[in-house]
């Protein structure tokens, strides 16, 4: 094999701490290397042209680029060598930037290490084989998990692009957290007025299949052809019949069911429609509170339902859907502030979360939009907002900024002053974080126009005095301790990953960080992709986000899906397992371990049994290769011989 080696200087990123010239000179000594050079920016257009020129000029059969991480530029260089007529797999990369030049300043040691890494890449390349993709047709349907504003936006964009959309929402209605909000910053427009039409659109699109009260049970398959099982939870109401008239809700005698939509500030009936604008507007029974289920009597709803939709015998139902791509938009949950013992640990009814206050402000909320204290229903006069509750606090395991609280407190303070002009609003904050369009101006308005008093400092304690709450904290600008007596304390509770995010990630085989937020493929350049092909992210499931950012990501993910679906078939990754029938002994241990069911057995004409890989199902993990005793099954492009060649450079 004739091999060319290109050692990238990456400006001074590599050349600063690695003698790239020496690495190139040394490479000339390695077996099969016929050309080696060092180049300033190998990934640049001229850099790539240089590779292509040398391939033709020197008749190269394989290329090694020593540069940055292959996770960064392997696809770039593969395309480059392909343009020069080589098979894209006749290429190897040595990572001498992230793994060498950036982690040590010892130029001599770095240079040695770079040489060895290049040598390993050359040694591996000598065993490379041209590999060829095959094409599999794409099922042009998309599954969107989660129907908050990000999922809704993604669904509408995909639907507008003519794609069939399967939208799964775990709650009885779509809308997500945004549906619970009263107004939105920085424009103070009504949340349900701008979200409502989008929700209605979803229900009217013919190519959108909505599964509410449903969760993803399992996912199999791969990009272009996923198989998804969806569990439709029993609502005990036949939604095909239910008209959402609400007669059953009004007559239901069980009034103590929890009301999550109102953040438990109120109670609901055992049969309920979560809110007036719900989509789908259908009733569902809470089994734990329904007298029919708990006491075995009642049946009022069944008697009065004009369309006979009540079905007490309903069971969960499993639905199968086949799709070609998946958008995950499962949103976030609110930090549980009861871990803050100093704020009462959830014991004081007048110390509430930001979302609870949102419900209080909302006209569809528990107090009809009148601001009242949950403890006694009276109007509050002094209201204190506390920022960063469950954000930027490593002691509760939430060191990150939730990004939205500074803004929503400003909004809520403005609305409070608007509703109750005689009220006093105080905000305890650490820093104001308002880097959006018109955001900082908005916070300023709260301070200057609405007279909200901002106190820079943390609150150390909240305790009751009489029927009021005393908020005791520091004013770090004045350098004094302050106490504010308040009728209502609103905690700007932060954003955390939604419950069950980890479980879903495992079903989808995508990564999540230590807080449960899903990992994007690249933090800057691939913000809505995941490392699992065909699975995309939108909204706060990837990290705290406000509405504009969630909507933007919903659209971005939809665009990614449409780009994927613009082709009729996708090329499969040829880096899959392959069986050498001559050495396969038919023990079939590979079948036992394959996580994807990608291997099957077949009987040859002579009666011998052999394993066979379904290339389109194989994901290329190599577990079978590691398991196979005679090593008859080999993962292409990571074969035993290739790995052994690398090891032999280091110790032969």
């Amino acid at each position, binding site marked *: 094999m004739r091999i060319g080696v290109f050692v990238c200087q990456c400006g001074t990123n590599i050349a600063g701490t690695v003698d790239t010239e020496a690495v190139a000179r040394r490479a000339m000594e390695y077996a099969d290397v016929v050309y080696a050079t060092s180049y300033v920016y190998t990934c640049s257009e001229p850099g790539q042209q240089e590779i292509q020129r040398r391939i033709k000029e020197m008749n190269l059969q394989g290329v090694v680029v020593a540069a940055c991480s292959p996770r960064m530029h392997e696809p770039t260089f593969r395309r480059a060598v392909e343009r020069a007529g080589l098979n894209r797999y006749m290429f190897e990369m040595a990572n001498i930037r992230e793994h060498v030049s950036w982690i040590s300043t010892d130029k001599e040691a770095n240079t040695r290490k770079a040489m060895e890494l290049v040598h390993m890449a050359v040694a591996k390349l000598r065993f490379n084989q041209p590999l060829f993709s095959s094409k599999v047709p794409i099922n042009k349907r998309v599954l969107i998990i989660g129907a908050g504003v990000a999922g809704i936006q993604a669904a509408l964009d995909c639907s507008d692009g003519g794609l069939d959309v399967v939208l799964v929402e775990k709650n009885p209605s779509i809308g997500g957290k945004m549906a619970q909000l009263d107004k939105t910053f920085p424009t103070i427009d009504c949340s349900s007025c701008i979200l409502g039409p989008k929700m209605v659109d979803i229900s009217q699109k013919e190519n959108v299949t909505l599964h509410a009260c449903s969760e993803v049970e399992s996912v199999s398959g791969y990009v272009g052809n996923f198989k998804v099982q969806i569990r439709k939870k029993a609502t005990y109401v036949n939604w095909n019949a239910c008209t959402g008239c609400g007669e059953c809700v009004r007559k239901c005698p069980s009034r103590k069911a929890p009301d999550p939509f109102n953040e438990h500030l109120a109670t609901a009936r055992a049969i309920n429609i979560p809110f007036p604008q719900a989509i789908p507007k259908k009733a569902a029974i809470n089994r734990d509170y329904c007298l029919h289920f708990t006491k075995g009597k009642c049946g009022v709803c069944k008697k009065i339902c004009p369309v006979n939709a009540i079905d007490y015998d309903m069971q969960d139902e499993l639905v199968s859907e086949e799709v070609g791509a998946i958008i995950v938009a499962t949103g976030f949950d609110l930090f549980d502030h009861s871990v803050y013992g100093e704020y009462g640990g959830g014991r004081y009814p007048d110390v509430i979360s930001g979302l609870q206050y949102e419900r209080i402000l909302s006209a569809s909320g528990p107090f009809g939009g009148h601001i009242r204290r949950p403890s006694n229903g009276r109007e509050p006069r002094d209201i204190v907002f506390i920022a960063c509750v469950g954000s930027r606090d490593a002691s509760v395991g939430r060191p990150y900024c939730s990004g939205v609280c500074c803004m929503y407190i400003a909004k809520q303070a403005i609305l409070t002053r608007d509703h109750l002009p005689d009220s006093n609003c105080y905000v305890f904050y650490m820093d104001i974080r308002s880097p959006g369009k018109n955001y900082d101006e908005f916070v300023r308005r709260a301070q200057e126009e609405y007279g909200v008093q901002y106190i820079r400092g943390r609150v150390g*304690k909240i*305790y009751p005095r009489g029927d009021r709450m005393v908020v005791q904290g520091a004013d770090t600008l004045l350098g004094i301790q302050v106490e504010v007596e308040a009728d209502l304390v609103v905690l700007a509770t932060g954003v955390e990953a939604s419950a069950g995010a980890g479980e879903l990630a495992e079903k989808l085989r995508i990564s999540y960080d230590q807080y449960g937020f899903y990992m994007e493929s690249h933090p800057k350049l691939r913000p809505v992709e995941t490392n699992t092909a065909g699975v995309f992210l939108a909204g706060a499931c990837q990290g705290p986000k406000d509405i504009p950012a969630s909507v933007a990501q919903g659209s971005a993910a939809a665009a990614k899906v449409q780009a994927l679906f613009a082709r009729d078939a996708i090329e499969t990754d040829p880096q899959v397992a392959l069986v050498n029938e001559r050495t396969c002994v038919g023990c079939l241990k590979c079948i036992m371990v394959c996580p994807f069911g990608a291997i099957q057995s077949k009987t040859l004409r002579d009666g011998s049994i052999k394993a066979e890989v379904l290339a389109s199902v194989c994901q290329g993990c190599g577990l079978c290769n590691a398991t196979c005793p005679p090593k008859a099954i080999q993962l292409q492009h990571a074969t035993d011989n290739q790995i052994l060649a690398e090891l032999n450079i280091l110790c032969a």
Partner: protein
Amino acid sequence: MPVELKPKKTTVAYYQGCSLEQMASEFDVSTRVVCDALGVELVEIPDWSCCGSTPAHSYDPLLSAALSGRNLAIAEQQGFDVVMTPCPGCLKALKGALKVFKDPNKREAFLEILQMPFQGNIQAVSNLQLYFETIGTEAIRNRVTKPLTSLSIVPYYGCLISRPPDFMQFDDPENPISMDRILEALGASVPEFPFKTECCGATYGVTRNEIVGKLTGRILDMANRVGAQAIAVSCPLCQQNLDLRQAQVNRYWRRDFHMPVLYISQFMGLAFGVEPESLGIDKLFVEADSLLDILSREGERDQSVGGKMA
């Protein structure tokens, strides 16, 4: 009278420390009485020395740790695996010594100063930890003969009993409840008390007593507001600031607090039917006569109806 249920006999090493020898001797006396009643044998560490608290600690932390280490080593030699101390300051020092011993970077220097064999197979616990975790409120309840039914008592924990949380590893750092539960087991009513862990001013008592006046005043005021008739404490310094300095506080705030501040063990002793004199209650600055009156009236009424203990 209920059947006397003595829990299984437990024996622990006892480190009383300097405060309980002198100023807080009633804490010592009542702790011994209560432990005896609960079937816990306290064995005073022979030839115990200073725990190395504040003054020693601020001069040389390692020497200070070795001082506590000496007491632990003696107890370990005697075959104990638990040493109990009622004083939170001593507890902090003893636990600190164990932490130093367990730190591989410090162990050698520590043992070098100690010059005694020490395995570190001993743990230090507070009196509350012993009552609450080892003995349990149920056993305490079973031991009560004169329930404090008509008393409303708030517990004041101060800063050290449950904090820093990782170090003390006992109770909730912001809303501790061990004394609450013990008081309830004694029959008292325990109102919600927001200032359980507020600062009492601690050692500023000597140098800047207006700070103590201000801070302790807030605590007394809150106790008053929530309707407490007495405060229960488990720290000599808390007791001193709330009790000894109550007159000062009254001058500072121009108030007239008269709030008896008893050690938790004194309340336990009373409920177990021990005579107040044997619990050192006469040593209080703010006299507890009013409490004792209430209790004795209660006792008479109980007897007149034939006792209501089940």
